[in-house]
């Protein structure tokens, strides 16, 4: 570690981001397999089983298949927008990992406004999404893009508010400090407020990730595949990758904000492993919700957001503030 820290900061950041990116792509490939296996078990199926032992090579086979597919561009598509959209979609989804400290001192950039950066960047995915919907020049895609903007605007606020509860409890926006503040007590164990905030976080995360039952923009029973209906081959793969990156990033955030990040039994070097396990736990929680409910309508989703989640999370935020003031010893 001492050799690494003696390198120039620019080189350090480059090496670190390359390492994080490489590890991330590998994890993402297998997160898809995890979800497929998990969903299969939920549905009394076996899931991928044929490619490799227990289907372990399935993600690789999928990747190869998508690489070899013909890359179709519809004749009436807005070509620059259509081609650029997957990249614009992918970049913010990968960028959110920049602020996450995977262990004390290991991370690309430990910003002093980490949570803020994470939430701001994570909302940027909507730009790529709307470009994909618009550029495809397809009515299903257009409707889907319109729904996406609606939904993400509606759910970012309650998502932000529920994420702000741990921030207030820790008294810092820096992610590593929030993690360190949970050394004694994970925020999910914080009486009443912690559990409510985690519940709100999971619900709003499902909605902000556009996963079922809030996946109205994908809504394949009405909009076929929504904004990505015209995409094929590697562009489709990039969109899929970005979506899973976003979900995984949110899972890491959830594990960091509520589940004590890298805290766990065993030696310190096990920290990142614990962190990964906790993130996967949050991921499976989101997956469980996804595969258990029927989708609700766009107007109902908006109603739930503005009339229920927004006031509830706001109230929770005030309650947190009140508790903090009450518990802080007055000078």
């Amino acid at each position, binding site marked *: 570690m001492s050799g690494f820290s003696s390198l120039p900061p620019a080189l350090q950041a480059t090496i670190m981001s390359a390492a994080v990116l490489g590890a991330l792509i590998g994890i993402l490939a297998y997160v898809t397999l995890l979800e497929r296996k998990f969903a299969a078990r939920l549905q009394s199926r076996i899931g991928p089983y044929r490619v490799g032992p227990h289907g372990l090579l399935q993600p690789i086979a999928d990747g190869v298949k998508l690489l070899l597919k013909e890359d179709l561009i519809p004749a009436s598509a807005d070509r620059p927008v259509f081609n650029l959209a997957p990249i614009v979609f992918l970049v913010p989804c990968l960028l959110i990992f920049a602020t996450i400290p995977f262990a004390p001192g290991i991370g690309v950039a430990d910003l002093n406004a980490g949570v803020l950066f994470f939430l701001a960047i994570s909302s940027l995915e909507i730009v790529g999404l709307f470009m994909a919907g618009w550029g495809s020049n397809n009515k299903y895609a257009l*409707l889907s893009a319109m729904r996406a903007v609606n939904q993400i605007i509606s759910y970012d606020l309650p998502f932000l508010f529920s994420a702000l509860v741990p921030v207030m409890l820790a008294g810092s926006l820096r992610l590593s400090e929030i993690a360190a503040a949970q050394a004694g007590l994970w925020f999910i164990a914080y009486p009443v407020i912690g559990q409510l905030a985690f519940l709100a976080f999971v619900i709003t995360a499902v909605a902000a990730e556009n996963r079922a039952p809030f996946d109205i923009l994908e*809504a394949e029973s009405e909009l076929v595949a929504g904004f990505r209906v015209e995409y094929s081959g590697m562009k489709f793969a990039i969109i899929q990758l970005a979506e899973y990156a976003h979900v995984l990033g949110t899972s890491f955030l959830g594990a960091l904000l509520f589940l004590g990040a890298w805290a766990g039994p065993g030696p310190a070097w096990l920290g990142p492993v614990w962190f990964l396990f906790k993130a996967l736990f949050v991921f499976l929680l989101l997956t469980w919700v996804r595969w258990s409910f029927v989708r609700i309508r*766009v107007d109902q989703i908006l109603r739930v957001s503005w009339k229920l989640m927004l006031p509830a999370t706001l109230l929770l935020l005030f309650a947190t503030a009140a508790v903090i003031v009450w518990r802080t010893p007055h000078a």
Partner: protein
Amino acid sequence: MPDVRAIDYAGSERLTMNMGPQHPSAHGVFRAILTLEGETVVGVDAVIGYLHRCHEKLAETLAYVQYPTIASKTDYVAAMSSELAYVMAAEQIAKVEVPKRAQYLRVLVGELQRIASHCLWLGTWCMDMGGALGGGATIFLYCIRERELVLDLFEALVGARLLYGFHQVGGVRYDLPEGWTDLCRRTIDLIDSRVDEYEHMLADNPFFDMRTKGVGVISRELAQDVGISGPLLRGSGVDFDLRRAYPYSSYEDFEFRVPVETAGDCYARYHVRMVEFRQSARIVRQVLDGLPEGPISSRPGVKSLAQVKVPKGEAYARVEGPRGEVGCYLVADGSNKPYRMKWRGASFSNLSVLPHILVGASVADVVAIMGSVDPVFGEVDR
């Protein structure tokens, strides 16, 4: 209703969106040309005919011993009911007596078919609402698991899983194989418990309530005006079931309840069908308990095409299929083939309600309503 294809929407806020015939929720090959204002449907043009196979003309060229097998292919999800309608029409003209055991067996397969068909309906409908990548797919796979059990029973009985050719003029073709009764009882008990599971998953689920209650309301008047039948009609408050109103095939021997709901929305139709699951299981148990001994057909087994000749005359036979009234109008000229034949498909008549209830719904509701109508396009287009 104006022809939505003829309206020029240039410069307006309206959007014409084509759904089908190739669409995940087309339930076969339904095509709806929707006019949207935002997400709200303001106009519907329903197009059918993509699966037309000249069934009625085909029936004129096939002998009475041949066509029951083809009749399965009108409503391929519930093949037993269309077969039964066809042979009943021929039996009415020819005044053929059907032995009691054959009548009971017809009831038995008819009710098992209703269970299998409702399994598919529940699964696909939930998939319409929940998506192939969400909770809907979970329920779909559960339902298909149970449907398979019923199809296994049919396979043991007939040798086929989807299109049977079980009925023939004068009776049925196959008797129950050894051990089938026990297998059937076990399957029915299992399905009964699984239907409880579905209800636990759906009935108290707020998301399911939000998607189904008050959606796609068919008023009692509309239901009677457009001539819908089956669970749709009973979901709209009309207490009519052919099995009880005009019993055929010894239905008068069995006790069952005909569920009626008055709300007329998707949830009411769901509830009617869920009760029908249980009532069908109840009838199956009664058949197995009271199955009389005796011949399974009043005519010898099929040897030649000229074997069954129906005298000159005409008849309309109707049975209560899983989707409603399946009717067969037959004109015979004394030969071994019908002179004319006409199907009254339950799905076809039920589908005619769609343009009335889709207007004003949102795009997401369109698929939920379509699924609750439960059309099978083999029967619509024939």
